[in-house]
């Protein structure tokens, strides 16, 4: 589904990604771990098309097509979804109106008609239930005054509504208490299928207890320095990142 080849990216002339290679197939869950400042969030932003980043070299191929020239919205229309580490507050736009607009604009981008209002409502109700979101919550202005947990739950709610093929969860576990973490993870797991894929970006192993990865990659200094299975996550949890740094620098 997604193939990243020798990806180099920088922001304001500061080189951050220095040759990433990654292949994600449909049905898989990949975890990307690594210390602060290793480039995890940059990778997520570059895949989703944030314009602040300059891709200097390499390819990002989605379903066989290089998507580097596509705008963020065009990538979204092709099924890319990024759950933000820090969701942005948009006062004046309710959660419901935002998601309705997002869905219908995405459908427009895919050459489809607007979703009938009845289906939309049904879907909203269904997905809100899945994420244990209160109806009142849906009429609040998007992310404004939301707690950390509410923001993350709302991100996954939007993911559930948009049903992306490739979901990137950037530090979705930060700011979540254990109950919220369980709800969010449960939501993600329910959405998983053999046709879509998930990239989970995290510092800690605790989210991976709930969303079990097929592969774990360690990102350090702009490169994937180690890949393995879920056992690698346990090892990192236990030993921290220093041994990786030593291995790389040796």
């Amino acid at each position: 589904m997604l193939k990243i080849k020798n990806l180099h990216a920088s922001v304001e002339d500061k080189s951050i990604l220095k040759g990433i290679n990654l292949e994600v197939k449909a049905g898989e869950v990949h975890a990307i771990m690594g210390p602060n400042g290793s480039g995890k969030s940059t990778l997520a932003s570059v895949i989703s098309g944030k314009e602040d980043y300059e891709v200097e070299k390499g390819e990002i191929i989605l379903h066989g097509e290089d998507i580097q020239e596509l705008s963020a919205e065009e990538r979204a229309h092709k099924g890319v979804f990024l759950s933000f580490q820090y969701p942005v507050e948009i006062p004046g736009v309710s959660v419901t109106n935002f998601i309705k607009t997002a869905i219908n604009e995405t459908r427009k981008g895919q050459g489809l008609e607007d979703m009938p209002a009845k289906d939309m409502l049904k879907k909203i109700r269904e997905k809100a239930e899945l994420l244990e979101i209160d109806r009142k919550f849906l009429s609040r202005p998007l992310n404004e005054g939301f707690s950390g947990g509410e923001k993350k739950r709302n991100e996954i709610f939007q993911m559930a509504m948009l049903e992306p093929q490739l979901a990137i969860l950037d530090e979705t576990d930060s700011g979540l208490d254990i109950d919220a973490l369980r709800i969010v993870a449960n939501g993600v797991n329910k959405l998983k299928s053999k046709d879509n894929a998930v990239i989970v970006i995290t510092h800690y192993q605790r989210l991976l207890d709930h969303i079990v990865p097929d592969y774990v990659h360690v990102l350090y200094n702009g490169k994937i320095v180690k890949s393995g299975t879920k056992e690698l996550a346990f090892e990192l949890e236990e030993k921290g990142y220093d041994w990786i740094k030593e291995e790389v620098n040796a």
Partner: protein
Amino acid sequence: MELKDKLVSSFLVFENHVNVDSKIHDIRNEAIKTFENLGFPSKRDEDWKYTSLKGVLKHDYSVFPKQEKALEYKDVKRYFIHDMDTYKIVFVDGKFSSHLSETTHDKIDVCLMSSALEKSKYKPIIENYFNKIVAKDSLTQLNTAFSREGAYIHIPKNQLVDKPIQILHFSTGNEAALMLQPRNLIVVEENSHVQIIERHQSLTDNPVLTNSVTEIFASKRAIVDYYKLQNDNQEASLVDNTYVEQKSESFCSVHTFSFGGKLIRNNLNFFQKGERVDSTMKGITIIGDKQHVDHNTLVHHIEPNCESHQDYKGIFGDKSTGVFNGKVLVEKEAQKTNAFQANNNILLSDKATINTKPQLEIFADDVKCSHGCTIGQLDDSAMFYMRSRGIPKKEAKALLMFAFSNNVLSSVKIPQMKQRITKLIANKLGVNIGFDL
């Protein structure tokens, strides 16, 4: 000839067409003298520091249009709020158009200034209210000097006016350049409620300058909702002078939507002459090119326990310029005043300008007055957030701007009006989405 000289000499011609042996004409006479002394305002005047009329005054305006041109309703329908029943007072090149209008004398008077100024049955109202609260500034005086036509609305006690009243001024381009000076008088007596929509629309690319004066009187417990829709074409300029006097427990709101025109100057003045008065003034300005919109507001708090709410949002693109000058004057007797003022602006281009100047003069010691103005750009992180959810750039931008203006839009009480404004904003932003915010 300079426009000023032309106007002063035109006054003599004007006198041939009106009854010069009347109190009204004494007022006109006085006014033309004041205008002659003052001349047009220039950037040297503190109140006009950021708005220059120079470019607007250079045209050779006709002051009295010669021929009349009939308009067909179907050709101008789109400028009306046409999906609801309303009273209509319509003028074409300054002259009343009876076939486009729908006036009434049934319990209320929704009719013409020209007949109100002449017929004796209106005399008590005219003598009590006409020209009573206007300022002595040159443009208002100029309008007074030539005051003859406009809307006359009188709502007696305890009337809930059954449908909104639309006041429309069309200019057709029959003249190479046209100056219009409509004069409106609106008197709403005790416990009555009225909704009014006002619009000036040029149908040509010939220059038009409108210098309008509206006096509004809201008696005890009256409710007046006034909407100004300013979406004129690129060669049309407007100076709108509106004066509102409110008696105790009255509520009056003026919403001004400025989306088009070459230059717009809104002088909006509220005088609170009673206790527990509520004055609300709100506006959305969305302009581009080299357009210029200036909001100059005044709230004069004279009595205790009153409120005023000002909320103006501006979005400026290209080389457009905005001005907001909001003056709140709280007299010593006006204790327990609550006065709020907000002016928030978004600049979409490096060459757009906003000059914003809150001016608070408070002589009472037990009041709550707040003001705030902000100038910013569209938030990049919000843009990326929305785009990553599949909302294209243009639509994302529009959604942010709608959200930004929502506080003003949400207090529009006529649903059809609100819908129209929403549509106009969407058109202006080039998007086709009915955000139901």
